[in-house]
């Protein structure tokens, strides 16, 4: 402990921040955990007690293994520590087993693997230019960035209350971004390839990686006007990149290919049978679409334009993952969402190719990819918004315009995570932590950019302030009204529709700023 004190006393604010948040995570151990806790316990049991050939076939529990093989190996490694805590949690038949030692082990495994995240944040802080650094520590971009990342509200509640392992996965992504910023392209590519085989949701941002590496790494030079010089193509670089991706994939999928289980693995990874929206609607385009449908159907019923007997009774927000039939608007198929997503991603990809702006441009494109897939994807989880929020933090400390977009995106995105925690003891925690992060992020970025124009216009201010009354209504007023039984879906619908507006707005604004920005080569004096 004394050594620890010596380490922090030397003005080393970064380790103090990291240790502080780690301790906060430890305090969150006794909080509520969702079914994801059981999911991961089950995976520990599967990987520990069954041979590899059965990992993707086992279905004693409804929470079958549906992450790529590296994650399964990760659970396998964890299980070898877990057996010293409580052997019983490694039994596949022990459904919903949650002894206090199991809880302790699982919680600590998340906290411990977050070390990678902390390291990644440390590396990211090195990449941003500290030109504007003020005199005071609390006004330095690096300090602000590390608080925004380390103390991120979303990660705290999703990982350390709800229970998931996003911390170290995000760490891998941030680290690979940092490597690309540091011109260590091969390392960045390797890290991202590994990440893809940990959790395939990162496929959303793969186009940005692929194109950036092709454009800015495989082509070694540009023409003076910024367009690509075709004859500068380095075949060697392309081959080595391909080799990295191939080797990583072979390591991950090879064993299952040898067992000829690949189709089974893929059917587990991409369950298209699930509905358009997750149990709770992620605040994206489809949430708005569904909300519109619901409103239209209610109006239709009132005006007797619709026949009540023909309306499907399945309510989307009843808690189970199920199909939802639209009553008025046309139903949406996976193919439609795929096409929408691709169309939404395309402009940003074009930008990356025709207006290369170095790593910063890549980062913008990556965020746009993540956001666009969040907006239009099939069966999107509300947690996926973290995929855009965390990289966006890197941009926010660089430019006032980005900071403004970041704040809108983060505040609404984080608020949309509220329904994840619905138990009473966690209510104060989520409100306090949310306030903590929001107050800090808004005020510190305002201080950072105080010499430029204000971050929000009146409309944005009004919108963000509206989140307060919305929360009061959903959590404190609604449960005591008579609508509670009749319209139980109302708070969720309101939350996701309200947040969807903000996120769509942020997405749109970011797109506009990317498309209208002048190429960096003209603005920067070389």
């Amino acid at each position, binding site marked *: *402990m004394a050594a620890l004190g010596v380490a922090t*006393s030397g003005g080393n604010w970064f380790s103090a921040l990291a240790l*502080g948040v780690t301790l*906060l995570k430890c*305090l969150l151990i006794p909080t509520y955990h969702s079914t994801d806790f059981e999911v991961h316990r089950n995976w520990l049991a599967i990987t520990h007690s069954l041979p590899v050939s059965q990992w993707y076939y086992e279905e004693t529990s409804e929470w079958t293994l549906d992450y790529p093989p590296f994650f399964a190996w990760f659970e396998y490694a964890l299980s070898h520590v877990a057996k010293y805590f409580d052997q019983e949690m490694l039994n596949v038949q022990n459904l919903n087993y949650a002894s206090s030692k199991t809880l302790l082990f699982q919680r600590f495994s998340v906290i411990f693997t977050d070390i990678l995240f902390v390291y990644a944040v440390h590396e990211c802080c090195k990449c941003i230019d500290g030109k504007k650094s003020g005199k005071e520590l*609390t006004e330095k971009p690096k300090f602000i960035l590390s608080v925004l990342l380390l103390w991120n509200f979303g990660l705290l509640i999703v990982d350390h209350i709800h229970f998931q392992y996003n911390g170290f996965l995000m760490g891998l992504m941030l680290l690979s971004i940092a490597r690309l910023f540091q011109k260590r392209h091969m390392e960045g590519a390797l890290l991202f390839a590994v990440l893809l085989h940990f959790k395939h949701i990162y496929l959303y941002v793969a186009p940005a990686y692929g194109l950036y590496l092709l454009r800015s790494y495989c082509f070694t030079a540009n023409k003076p006007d910024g367009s690509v010089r075709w004859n500068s193509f380095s075949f060697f670089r392309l081959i080595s990149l391909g080799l990295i991706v191939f080797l990583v994939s072979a390591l991950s999928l090879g064993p299952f290919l040898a067992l000829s289980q690949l189709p089974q693995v893929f059917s587990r990874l991409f369950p298209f049978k699930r509905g358009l929206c997750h149990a709770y609607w992620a605040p994206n385009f489809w949430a708005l679409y569904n909300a519109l449908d619901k409103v239209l159907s209610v109006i239709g019923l009132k005006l007797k334009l619709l026949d009540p007997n023909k309306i499907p009774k399945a309510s989307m927000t009843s808690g189970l993952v199920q199909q939802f039939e639209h009553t008025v608007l046309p139903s949406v198929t996976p193919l439609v969402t795929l096409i929408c997503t691709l169309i939404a991603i395309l402009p940003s990809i074009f930008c990356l190719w025709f207006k290369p702006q170095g790593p910063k441009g890549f980062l913008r494109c990556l965020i746009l990819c993540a956001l666009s897939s969040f907006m239009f994807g099939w069966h999107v989880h509300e947690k996926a918004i973290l995929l855009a929020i965390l990289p966006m933090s890197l941009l926010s400390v660089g430019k006032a315009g980005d900071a403004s977009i970041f704040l809108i995106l983060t505040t609404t995105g984080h608020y949309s995570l509220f329904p994840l925690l619905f138990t009473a003891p966690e209510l*104060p*925690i989520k409100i*306090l932590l949310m306030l*903590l992060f929001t107050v800090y992020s808004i005020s510190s970025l305002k201080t950072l950019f105080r010499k430029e124009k204000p971050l929000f216009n009146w409309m944005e201010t009004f919108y963000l302030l509206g989140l307060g009354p919305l929360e009061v209504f959903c959590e404190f007023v609604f449960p005591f009204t008579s609508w509670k039984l009749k319209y139980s879906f109302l708070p969720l619908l309101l939350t996701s529709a309200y947040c969807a507006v903000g996120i769509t707005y942020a997405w749109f604004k970011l797109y506009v700023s990317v498309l209208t920005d002048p190429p960096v080569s003209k603005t920067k004096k070389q």
Partner: protein
Amino acid sequence: MEKWYLMTTVVLIGLTVRWTVSLNSYSGAGKPPMFGDYEAQRHWQEITFNLPIKQWYFNSSDNNLLYWGLDYPPLTAYHSLLCAYVAKVINPDWIALHTSRGYESQAHKLFMRATVLIADLLIYIPAVVLYCCCLKEMSTKKKVANALCILLYPGLILIDYGHFQYNSVSLGFALWGILGVSYHWDLLGSLAFCLALNYKQMELYHSLPFFCFLLGKCFKKGLKGKGLVLLIKLACTVVASFVLCWLPFVTEKEQALQVLRRLFPVDRGLFEDKVANIWCSLSVFLKIKNILPHHTQIKISFCFTLLSLLPACIKLIFQPSPKGFRYTLVTCALSFFLFSFQVHEKSILLVSLPVCLVLNEIPFMSTWFLLVSTFSMLPLLLKDDLLMPTVVTVMAFFIACATSFSIFGKTSEEELQLKSFSISVRKYLPCFTFLPRVIQRLFLMSVITMVLLTLMTVTLDPPQKFPDLFSVLVCFVSCLKFLFFLVYFNIIIMWDSKSRRNQKKTD
């Protein structure tokens, strides 16, 4: 204040930590028949809500005083009544007479925890924030850091939100009192302190410094002119606020006497459980409790207490200053804790509060003291199953103090406020230059013993012959350190003005 947002952040961090600690177990959870302090507080709500005010402090068929009878002053009872009215609205079962005994449920726990948080948020936290904002000669950043450290003090958090009590109310009122009298709002200050006294009689530990400081102020203004007016005003305020709080009880003599008997249970013995004070530590070698008759024990403890706090108090009367006042609060409370009769382990919080207030002046020693004070309550916290939150909050507090004050760089004589003392010792002992180094070593040793003892208590089973071995050891070690701190703080007080005179000379 240009950095209000940093202060907001700090308050929010404090609140978050408080609420997360409150998710843990409380004292006496699921332990019939007596349960613990949590049940005591619930029981008081039941009693105050269902019985007429005249019966609150009396034994009756509806009010068994042996089962957590009300033994705090009226303000606590009123607070319980207020909480009971809220409880009645939510769930009448929680406060039903007789049948609610030992009531425990998740919802009830949530309610009780929320009452603590609300009281804290209304009384203690604003006082801390205001105190830090009023500090002079400090940058905003330092003020914020100071507030963070005070708000993260683990002892108070663990007792209020883990073990379950409302110390933040009485300590908060006391802090308002300190703020008042330090910034020339003497009447409001004494009113706030009277409220504190009427919330918990343990606030008497702080009463002498208040008395001496205010008396000193009156003397300073001249007892024949303005001083007398102030004195009369103060006396009126105190009497009025006391009468107001005791209104239902002062009408009959028997009522008032009964309340007083409940507040000061002199027949309960020299100390209870394992306390880190002199008497408990001495009893390792000498069973005073059994050797000496009861009234002798009371006399001895009274004499010792008086002797140890007298010098500081006398000095305060003749040289009243806000700084001296804060240090006298520390020594007086510490003397009471170490020597007085019927001390609880939780009473160390009364010493910790004024120590928190001098955190910015002597960060190294204050941090050390606050760590030891939390450690001294270890047996209690372990009994309540609070090991995890204890370790985490102590580490968080330590990191907060270490980073915001860089305490390890502040161990010179000057920064320990021992300069003038060392100079006067050096007149007789020229080689007396090793004090800072000795103190550093002592700190290191103290931290190591605390860590080791904690580890031993948690992992090892005590030998069958001495089932209390570890808790006695914890108390003994803490007691030694508290004695050391008592000497240290007295030295600071005694050599304080000399240093000022020296500074003036050098200027």
